[in-house]
């Protein structure tokens, strides 16, 4: 090979290497799919959609439920407590839809609603998990209104303070469901039975639950097991 050929070869090789290694993957590019027709669902799926839906409003697969619909599970006026084999032990009324969402409704709820979930270590532990998931970011792990978000969101109530720690379960349930003052409604994030479990745990934080039951749950909750105890009574799979 003469020197001219050397030069041409080296130049091509170096340029080729540069070309091959210089391309970074575009983070916006999902990459190639071999058989898209096997990847994309033909039936409607709620959170995956490639083509606009020609039948539904706004081209969405998701639709709002018809007006005045009540969620079926919550509509069932009974809350079933089952043992480990799924046999129904006890049925409790959990209906609350006839209570208005305003201040008067809260007064009413405070008087008439009773927590249908029995207080025991299990329901308190589940309430703790739910409290930590949905409430602690503002109200703080101990309920003192010192969660991280309260640095930005002013006016978070100190649940252990004198103005709050005597509140009834019905009042707390109504506030979680419909909001009050600066707190916005959280009813869309928690089912009715979950809210009642949170009410139990909030009562424990407030010191309304007998100490011996509370302390048992506290020690149990300190272990890593507590995260495993999740409400099994929610949506049917």
């Amino acid at each position, binding site marked *: 090979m003469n020197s001219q050929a050397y030069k041409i070869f*080296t130049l091509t090789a170096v340029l080729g290497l540069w070309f091959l290694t210089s391309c970074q993957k575009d983070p916006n590019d999902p990459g190639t799919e071999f058989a898209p027709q096997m990847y994309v669902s033909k039936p409607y799926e709620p959170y995956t959609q490639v083509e606009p839906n020609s039948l539904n409003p706004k081209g969405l697969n*998701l639709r709002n439920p018809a007006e005045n619909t009540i969620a079926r599970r919550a509509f069932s006026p009974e809350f079933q407590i089952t043992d480990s*084999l799924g046999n129904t032990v006890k049925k409790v009324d959990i209906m609350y839809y006839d209570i208005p969402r305003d201040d008067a409704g809260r007064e009413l709820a405070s008087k008439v609603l009773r927590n249908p979930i029995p207080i025991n270590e299990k329901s308190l532990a589940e309430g703790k998990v739910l409290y930590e998931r949905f409430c602690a970011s503002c109200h703080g792990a101990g309920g003192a209104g010192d969660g991280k978000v309260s640095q930005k969101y002013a006016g978070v109530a100190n649940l252990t303070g004198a103005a709050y720690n005597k509140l009834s379960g019905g009042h707390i349930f109504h506030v979680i469901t419909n909001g009050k003052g600066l707190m916005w409604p959280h009813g869309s994030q928690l089912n009715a039975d979950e809210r009642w479990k949170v009410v139990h745990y909030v009562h424990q934080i407030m010191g309304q639950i007998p100490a011996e039951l509370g302390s048992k749950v506290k020690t149990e909750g300190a272990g890593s097991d507590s995260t495993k105890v999740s409400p099994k009574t929610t949506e049917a799979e």
Partner: protein
Amino acid sequence: MFANRITIYQKLLFVLLFGLFTSYGVHAQDSLATATTDNADGGLAKPSDEVYNTGKTLWEQNCTSCHNINAEKKVGPGMKGIFERRDRAWLKPWIVNSQAVIASGDAYANKLYNEYNQTVMTSFAFKDEELDALLDFIAYESEQEAVVVTDTDGGNTVAGDSGGISSNYFNLLLGVLVFVLILILAVLFLMVTILNRFLNQKEDLNEADKEIVNQKFNPFSIFQSRAFLGGVALIFVLVVAKTGLDGLIGVGIQQGYAPTQPIAFSHKLHAGMYEIDCGYCHTGVYKGKSATIPSANICMNCHNQVKVGSPEIQKIYKAIENDKPIEWIRIHNLPDLAYFNHSQHTNVAGLECTQCHGEVEKMEVVAQRAPLTMGWCINCHRQSAVDHAEGNEYYDRLLEYHEGTKGKAPMTVEQIGGLECSKCHY
């Protein structure tokens, strides 16, 4: 007798010294007392410890979430100068039940209520002496403005400054080093040229020496050697092969996919800095197949108040006003031929979100961490031990049989049918 006299002297001395100390002590106390009154700056004297502490506890437990002790507004007005605006006779019923004061038609109360967007102040059923203690505390503490303000803000600025200084210092050091290196190079180059010129001027050099002095080093000659050529060819072939193989293997795998979303939502801020639980927004993750994307009402739980003016937050407001959904881009796409259910993994198996999604709380833009290939699924099903619920008789017996046949080895997902084709493909 002599010894006795000494003791008398000693006693005298002791009395004298004692007198000196006590008078000094009284004097010191005097100066302390004047100091406190000076400190109050002509305002109210500090209430007694008991009253002060009662007031402080009440203040911290009930008021601080909505009121600042200084002039700054929070949810309600700041407390500085409150007694110039209102007197105790007005404040007490207001604290106990502000709505009753408003309903009574009090002009100031109604003005205040409307000024603060009709935010209802919580009613506090304090006893009269508690109210007095609280108001004493506020009266005293709201005039001590500097203490509260500097505590929070001062600490932050100091921390921020020190961080800035250290990084600036590092940059400066780097600049100086680079400058020195360039200087050294310049000096060396100068020395070489001077030496060359000096040697060339010398007459008594022979030809061989002259050649060495004046030789031109050709760095490009290296590129023409056979060894170099062979090396380049080898690397070229290897890189081509690797790029080709990677491209082929990567078909259908979206690992690292991190699309720009319609709203620059930061998980690092929300889940990391403010420690909001994943399940707070992704409400379906413990209940159903999909973890769900939060609807705008969940954003509004905080952003009705937080950063409302930000252009990114305004996009949520626009979406709500126009009743037009936010088109988030789905990142984790499983093919339709594979079934996956979140609740089975989070609620039943007890997996943490991070085990598949990586440390989302540290991601500014969420990227797909796991390859989501079938091999990846199966690998986990082979290795993970089943953590069955306590007191579930079905699993208790299953574990009994398992230990009967397999001994003490943990029962894996594979052994309870986690690799059956039809579990995921049907």
